């Protein structure tokens, strides 16, 4: 459903951030884009999110170039939750969730709020509905940001470094929680946390210096990495 075909990206400064990146994400899957910081993960995320336009290669959603979609339709189909979450601090969690459906999609406010509450219920954070972002924990904020993105019913949802603010125990809890949401959308997890990726994702790619160096089963990638480390040590 999401295919990245031979994408290369060069910043105006001359840095070659992506070289010939290609992979395919299947619907209903959790897909992992792995790599250390500086490997090109963020640039790739920005390209898929239409915040950067690569000069070479193509990114397609359901067989159609992402650049051919209307802005609104594209944003509805492909969601992104950034590492910083960026919950809107002046709005409650419920208001954060209903803003885009009501204002951008013109849906009925009462129905959206009802759906938001159901979503929070389903995501096991019903208690934060009326709270402001600075009144909730990091784990709750993470889930609230995902809930906000899910309100648009995207076909594909990109999560940027979802575990960076979570400790080990919470990460495991979060992984279980995420697996439980597979019915909602196709998740693409962009992360440097390989054990977490192995826990939630079946397939993925490993980026190094802007290029895909490993692809396929995440377990296999994890295995190869472990072997590589053992070799190096």
């Amino acid at each position: 459903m999401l295919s990245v075909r031979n994408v290369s990206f060069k910043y105006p400064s001359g840095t070659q951030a992506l070289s010939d990146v290609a992979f395919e994400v299947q619907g209903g899957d959790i897909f992992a884009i792995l790599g250390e910081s500086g490997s090109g993960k963020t640039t790739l995320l920005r390209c898929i999110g239409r915040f950067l336009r690569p000069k070479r290669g193509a990114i397609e959603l359901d067989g159609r170039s992402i650049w051919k979609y209307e802005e609104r339709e594209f944003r509805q189909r492909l969601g992104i939750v950034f590492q910083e979450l960026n919950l809107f601090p002046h709005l409650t969690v419920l208001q954060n969730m209903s803003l885009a459906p009501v204002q951008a999609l013109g849906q009925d406010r009462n129905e959206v709020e009802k759906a938001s509450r159901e979503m929070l219920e389903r995501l096991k954070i019903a208690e934060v509905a009326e709270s402001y972002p600075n009144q909730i924990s990091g784990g709750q904020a993470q889930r609230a940001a995902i809930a906000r993105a899910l309100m648009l019913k995207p076909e594909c949802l990109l999560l940027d470094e979802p575990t960076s603010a979570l400790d080990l125990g919470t990460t495991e809890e979060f992984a279980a929680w995420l697996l439980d949401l597979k019915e909602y959308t196709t998740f693409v997890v962009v992360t440097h946390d390989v054990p977490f990726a192995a826990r939630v994702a079946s397939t993925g790619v490993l980026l190094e210096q802007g290029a895909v160096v490993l692809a396929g089963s995440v377990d296999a990638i994890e295995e190869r990495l472990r072997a590589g480390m053992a070799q190096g040590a």
Partner: protein
Amino acid sequence: MKWLERIVRTAAAVWILVLLLGAIPEAGSAYAASTAAESFTVALTGKYPPFSFYSDEAELVGFDVDVSQLVAEKLNRELRIVTTEWDGILGGLLAGKYDAIIGSMAITPERAKSVDFTMPYYVSGAQLFVHVDDAGEIQSLKDMEGKKAGAVLGETFEHYLVTNHPEISVVTYKSTVDIFQEMQHRRLDGFVTDRLVGMYQIKSAQMPFVPAGPLLYEEQMAIPVKQDQPELLAAINQALTDLEAEGELAKLHEKWFASIHAAEDESVAATGSAEETGGMSWGTIAVRLLRGFGITLLVAFLSIAMGFILAVPAGVVLHGAPRLGQTVVRAIVDFIRGTPVLIQLFFVYFGSPQIGLNLSPMVAAVVTLTINSAAYMSEVVRSGLLAVSPGQRVAARALGLSPFEVFRFVVWPQALRVALPPLMNSAVALLKDTALISVISVAEVIREAQSIISVTFDPAKYYLIVAVMFFVFTYPLMRLASAFEAHMKKRGFAGA
């Protein structure tokens, strides 16, 4: 966000209101465009008893007021009187704000270069006054060498002293009231003013000052008009000639100066005249101060509201518009912030007729303060926008909001929360800046106070009352600003 809509709607109403403002007569200065047919618009200060001042009933009265009325009747035109500050009164005439000045203006060659004077309608002279304790020591201007003499800024006496007596150090003041204060505190050794006026004021204020020496020179008081109006000049001259011949001017002299001549005779010093002028009733004073403060608040409110509406787009441009737009707005904002409000006020009021706009003092004041507050508030808006992290915009875009929706629902509400306390402080500053608009004769509270002081001679009391009136409004605003700031900090807003 309903309140935002409400602000926008209110602001639109305010814009319409300001368009209608020209039609609102200002309290205390019934100004109308001098081009209106059949009206004869005359300027005077309203602070120069017994020639022009406010009576106990808050009516403008005096010798000059009566002369104006008689002249208008002779011209068969309807009299309108503008009260304005003395140091801008000629500028106003040249700018076409009124037809003539009937404000005890002496004929001087310098003034005659820029305006045409009618025949004199009374004659007075310059007199040195000193403190009664110094009367033995200072008997004439010769004894003033190396001493300090006071004069009202812009009056002929100031010019006379500076030109003819460089040995005397001349200090200028806005009004005789200020000079009396300085004399009382012995910070001045003497002052020069019109003999008639001086005697009248000293008696009214019950001040221990006496004339020293003979008249320094004689002054002929006449009516200046703009130089391109020979018909008007001739008509006023004819009117004065007729009034003189009919004995009307003599009657006015009798009416206004009889008590003064009597005052020179010590045996009749204790007449009721001091009470008539000095004893303005508290009711009148309260009504005038409150009415003046009402105008102050109206001007401040309109300027703040409209300034804010202009400041939002200006702040957005300053924050992130393309280079050209940013450079232009930045230049305008910097210029306004880098120049005194007083100069801007004069520029708008006296300069507007040159581009074909004859703004009333009230409209000129609102326009100036609106532009001024817009400049300051646009900087506040800009810093508010800067405080919103770029991630907020990107996240909002990723949710499918359009650029306008991102601004309207995500960026602006956050920026406003950060900007609100400094915006409130700007409002406080602007409210205080309204004190300046008295110089272009808007009848706001300072001008009312000055006018009351010109009769009561008690500046400390009335300026303190005015200061308290301002404080009653500014203090809660300041408290509210800090309380809101603390609240925002608790809610974790960037920059707050």
